[in-house]
């Protein structure tokens, strides 16, 4: 079995431990450089570190996929069917982490969410939805149209006109969503630059806070779009 060289980024904040098999020093690498045995996951290691990546938001999809395939090839439980139970469990732990990390990092939105969670800016699983102030009026109108549509349906009234209005609104919000995504991408680039050039801590914190706020706005609009789609689809 070939060894994946310990990558620089992987050592970030990860304590040096010794290999369970040969006691050689290991710093978060998937395999021991000395004996090649799969190693336990260090506590608190991030998905970025798992792939040997810095904590930046621009990730080249093809290279991430290539890494994913390469690591799958080595870590997948198929390789460990005849290993000891201990090693089998390590493979299960690492390969599930690999899949979880890939699933998260390949999706640009999930990637930002994860970074914020990992840095403690966002609480896991909480998508606080904020109504964007500039959209409040439109949201109000939308809810009204939705109510009218439901009433019209119940009363067997004319729904065609209302449906047209809702479709237009849906289109509008979809565009809003695209704008938010563009905004998020721009913030991401700023963040990457700050990481590269060692931007000061307060600037980084401010960027993270803005990304968090943008994500909340995004969640809100997305829910609106989904709600309208559901109403129109039924």
């Amino acid at each position, binding site marked *: 079995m070939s060894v994946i060289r310990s990558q620089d980024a992987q050592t970030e904040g990860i304590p040096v431990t010794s290999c369970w098999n040969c006691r050689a020093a290991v710093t978060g690498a998937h395999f021991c450089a000395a004996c090649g045995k799969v190693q336990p996951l260090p506590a608190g290691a991030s998905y970025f570190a798992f792939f040997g990546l810095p904590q930046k938001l621009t990730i080249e999809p093809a290279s991430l996929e290539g890494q994913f395939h390469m690591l*799958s*090839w080595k870590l997948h439980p*198929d*390789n460990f069917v005849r290993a000891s139970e201990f090693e089998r469990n390590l493979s299960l732990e690492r390969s*599930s982490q690999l899949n*979880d990390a*890939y699933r998260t990092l390949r999706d640009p939105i999930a990637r930002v969410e994860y970074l914020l969670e990992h840095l403690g800016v966002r609480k896991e699983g909480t998508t606080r939805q904020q109504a964007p102030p500039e959209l409040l009026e439109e949201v109000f109108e939308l809810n009204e149209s939705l109510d009218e549509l439901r009433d019209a349906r119940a009363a067997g009234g004319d729904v065609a006109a209302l449906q047209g209005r809702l479709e237009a609104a849906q289109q509008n919000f979809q565009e809003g969503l695209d704008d938010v995504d563009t905004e998020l991408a721009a913030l991401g680039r700023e963040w990457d630059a700050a990481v590269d050039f060692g931007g000061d801590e307060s600037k980084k914190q401010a960027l993270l806070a803005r990304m968090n706020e943008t994500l909340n706005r995004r969640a809100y609009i997305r829910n609106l779009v989904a709600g309208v789609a559901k109403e129109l689809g039924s």
Partner: protein
Amino acid sequence: MGRVVGIDLGTTFSLIAYLDAQTGSPKCIPGPYGSTLCPSVVSVDRDGKVIVGEPARAKLLTQPERTIYSVKRLMGRGVADVQDELKIFPFRIDPGSDNVIRVRLGDKSFTAPEISAYILRELKSWAEAYFNEPVDRAVITVPAYFNDAQRQATKDAGRLAGLEVLRLVNEPTAAALAYGLHKQKRGHVAVYDFGGGTFDISLLKLISTNEGDIYQVLATNGDTHLGGDDIDNALLDLARREIREKFGVEFDHRGEAIQTLRKSLIRAKHELSSAQRTIVQYPLESKGMYVREITRAEFEELIRPIIARTMAPVKMALADAKLAPQEMDEVVLVGGSTRIPLVRKTVGDYFQRAPHCELDPDEVVALGAAVQADILETGVKTMLLLDVTPLSLGIETMGGVIAKIIPRNSTIPASAQELFTTGVENQTAIDVHVLQGERELAKDCRSLARFQLKTPPGPAGLARIEVKFLIDANGILQVAARDLRTSEQHTVEVQPSYGLSDTEIERMLEESIEYAEQDFAERQVIEARTEAETILAATDKALADPRSREISAAERKAVADSEAHLRAALAGGDYKLMRTRIDEINAATAHLAEVLMNGALQTAFEGKRLDDV
């Protein structure tokens, strides 16, 4: 260690295959009747002997009450789940069943994994005869859309058949493996698998890397209760209605007559895959003959809604994979029902390309299983399968709402960590309910398991228990918990919502090992003897009890006599006589037991009586 094999445990047919070391290609093993297909039919004859496959299929007509087909439909399901199916399938469900269905075959009842284990044992014996060597490990295929309970039930069946299940592999993925090996193609492949009882669609990406080929499943979807069986039932419905209207004859849907009718309709269905018309003839004893011509066109009208039902999962899988139908480079057809021309046309039209069907659709799944078995046996060298979990995993939160923790179509193994704490002061247990499914409310999803996290009393929110949910490479859930405050591993006793517990499996295994080689009569003798000995010991104890003086001397003598008779019967080897004597002693001691009201004695007697029913 013995050989490894790949097994396709199908709804209608099962097959066993191995990888031929000489040619490097997989091969199916034929059974004693020359065919590689083993009908998934099990029959238990009057003296308790289990018959599997072709001879059992014959019993479907002569002894339907002792014979079962399509048992795969019952795997991992509870009684409430199968109510609809019971209207059309002649399953005889034991009234005592709840979350594990027991089926009556003659005078005994069996769980679905036990019945499936008989099919697996039969196949295992085919392979052992073929190799002249023991076979003890297998890869078994399951429909991609099987949930956790259905997968667990399949794994249990393997264990009960004396096989170490190296891996459960999804049927369409196995087919892709066999197919990819055969064609050496790369790109996006759609596998449309329409079998006897299940429908699956899987979308894969075949990639060549420096190390070898990766078969990565991007998305899967399906219906675990949609297949050729449903077409048969549609034809059966039509015929029954016409026979009722024209001849006034009503069928018992569990009787023998309907099995004969069903058989001729299936033959007609198969003929219509190549012919434009066919004639069904069915004799109605005194009432004459039901003769019916069915044209291809009429048949297609009848089955159109069934085929349409396969397209919704296809669309969902494409949406999840973010692919358009025309982006698929290849479309592969698997399963007997894809021989139907309308199925081929529907699929071909949708994907805008002619589907592939050059590999035998009956064998391709088993062949792929054999390839995977070899990979696991000899190590990953040239190929790697990356499969996904078909259904989202979630936990129930406040108000019965589901919080999704692992989304569907995640590559497996996949995991999720959740932190649990107490909500009120001095709470000592936190209930966790795990579910699978896409709906938002817990009540609409499939309950997988429940467990309790125990914690010492303390202020609310103090406890910190981290639970790790992990879906392994078989698609089966594993749960582990850790107390973050003490960093101690927490033991969780997971109670599966459907399916057998470990203890039940152990018991069945013990029984099966103990009894596998013994014939029915021998087993009866052992059972009767054990029972007799328990009763004799309990009776002796009862007679020694001072309170037993309350019964009359005559009764006392009757009890003593019945004891002597039973002992005499035990000396011989006739289990029927032992049974009679046991019944007699039970009758003779009834009053004694009542008088004593002795807990232990009472249980001893009652226990036995319950077993008898």
